[in-house]
């Protein structure tokens, strides 16, 4: 279970998250929706430990571990996976090498046995097939020259192989056409399980037609201002965020 309590994060001198409180029980998918500038991406970065996004106050615990005390790689080993809105290009490091290095680093950190090269190859082949990815793409440097859709698919492939327990999807639908969106959503839905929690961060309701949330939270001005069932997403789509903006309150 993810427990975020009174989280405050400033970027530079500017307060972005101003006391955010949110719980995501194991096995549930929660959506965080909000207008531009509400702090959506900051939430993803703060949870995953990006330098410059440190909490000044509050706490975040994941299955009982104090996430804020860990560095980004340690958090990853605890199961935290942030799917990037714009995945980075890693020149010179083949995708396969990258994923295997990450998987084995996580396993080492957890005191588990590493995966051998042949065993990993088998895993990768199966996973790339189910995502309808060209296997040769995995021999190329990670994300270098990939289209937006290919990069997102590569994120889902990493997700499938690293098997994180806390998935944070940051605007995963941006830049995807409808076919790519469906493949990505199928990949995410295939990961739903009773042990896994997901936080879907999105501006638009569109993604939530494909990844159905159990709960929807509205993030405005660095705080969760409303929470509800899936119907809240439709209400936001119809009425916009205006009703939640400070002026309207």
């Amino acid at each position: 279970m993810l427990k975020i309590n009174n989280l405050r994060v400033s970027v530079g001198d500017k307060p972005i998250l101003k006391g955010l409180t949110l719980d995501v029980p194991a096995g549930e998918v929660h959506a965080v929706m909000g207008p531009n500038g509400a702090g959506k991406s900051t939430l993803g970065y703060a949870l995953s430990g990006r330098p410059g996004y440190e909490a000044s106050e509050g706490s975040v615990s994941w299955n009982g571990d104090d996430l804020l005390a860990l560095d980004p790689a340690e958090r990853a080993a605890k199961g935290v996976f942030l799917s990037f809105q714009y995945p980075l290009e890693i020149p010179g490091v083949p995708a396969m090498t990258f994923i295997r290095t990450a998987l084995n680093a996580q396993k080492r950190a957890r005191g588990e046995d590493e995966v051998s090269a042949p065993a990993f190859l088998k895993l990768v082949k199966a996973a790339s097939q189910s995502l309808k990815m060209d296997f040769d793409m995995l021999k190329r440097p990670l994300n270098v020259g990939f289209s937006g859709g290919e990069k997102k698919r590569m994120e889902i492939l990493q997700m499938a192989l690293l098997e994180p327990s806390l998935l944070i999807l940051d605007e995963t639908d941006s830049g995807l056409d409808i076919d790519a969106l469906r493949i990505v959503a199928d990949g995410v839905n295939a990961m739903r399980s009773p042990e896994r929690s997901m936080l879907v961060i999105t501006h638009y309701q569109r993604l939530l037609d494909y990844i159905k949330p159990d709960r929807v939270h509205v993030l405005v001005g660095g705080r969760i201002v409303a929470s509800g069932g899936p119907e809240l997403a439709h209400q936001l789509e119809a009425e916009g965020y205006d009703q939640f903006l400070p002026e309207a309150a």
Partner: protein
Amino acid sequence: MNAPVRIDLKDPSSFPSRRVEAWKYTDLYRWLRETPPASPEGAVEPGGPFAALGGEELTFVNGRCDGFAGIVAEGEGLTPVRLRFVSTAEGAGHQARVTIDVKPGASLTLLESYEGPARGYVSNISLDITVGEGARLTRVIVAEDAADAIGISQAHITLAHGATLHQSAFTAGGKLQRLETQVEHPGHGAFVRLDAAYALHDARHADLTSVVDHQGPDGRTSQLTKGVVHDTARGVFQGKIIVERGADGTDARMGHHALILSERGEIDAKPELIIYADDVQCAHGNTVGSLDQNALFYMQQRGIPFEEARALLTHAFLMEVVDRVEHEGAREVVREWLTARL
């Protein structure tokens, strides 16, 4: 072109200071003002970084190699020549002059190593190399002088028409180290590849200086140097390509790209293209920067610890130079050698 400084350890007036333009970043005079005591004879076991590749071994220990009268390559040259420079004399100096003649139509793979391992030595090696018409020289160099030693290697290479030079140098530096290559390029189908990579730690210094002088038409040069510095290390790249009057149709490319991985590391880069001819294709690129912080975070987010992520990015960055080594055995030796020094 300006005649290169020829250093003679017996003549302190030949030691360049930073006031000599070509030695501006590698101030030999600062560290060496007098003739060092002469190194005694020494002996070492066969070996060196390229030992596994077999071939003929020629080893200079403290500047001496008994019975050596130069290397002459005739014919196919299927097995490599391993030319080792080993310094076992502590706090002493030695020098050697080596001639290498690759006859017309012949080919030679020269695997050259500067190995130390004594403390505080001064090693001064000069090589005079000729590559005959249509001949081919592959020169792969690994250099690691002791952290408190001075190592200088100066090669003067003269190519004939249609000759090919593939040179790749890999270095971990020394207290003061310079690997200098002067190439007389006649054009007329001759081709030069002049690559290098440096990985420097602590207070080490490596200077990769080259001059390629295109003297005739239709010559090609492709040069790629990459480097990383840690701690207070200093990397120097001075690459000069001259295209003389009449050397029309020259195609010359030079790239130097380096990463500074510490607060106090330093890179001095001076790429120069000097063109007196018409209808030439010349380009150079030079970048010095640090690792992409966003890429580093991305890698950590996937579980790769910071140090490992940094090493992986650095490795990938330098391996581009290794991948250009065509001799497969040498390429893999160098890959391992460089990986161990990241």
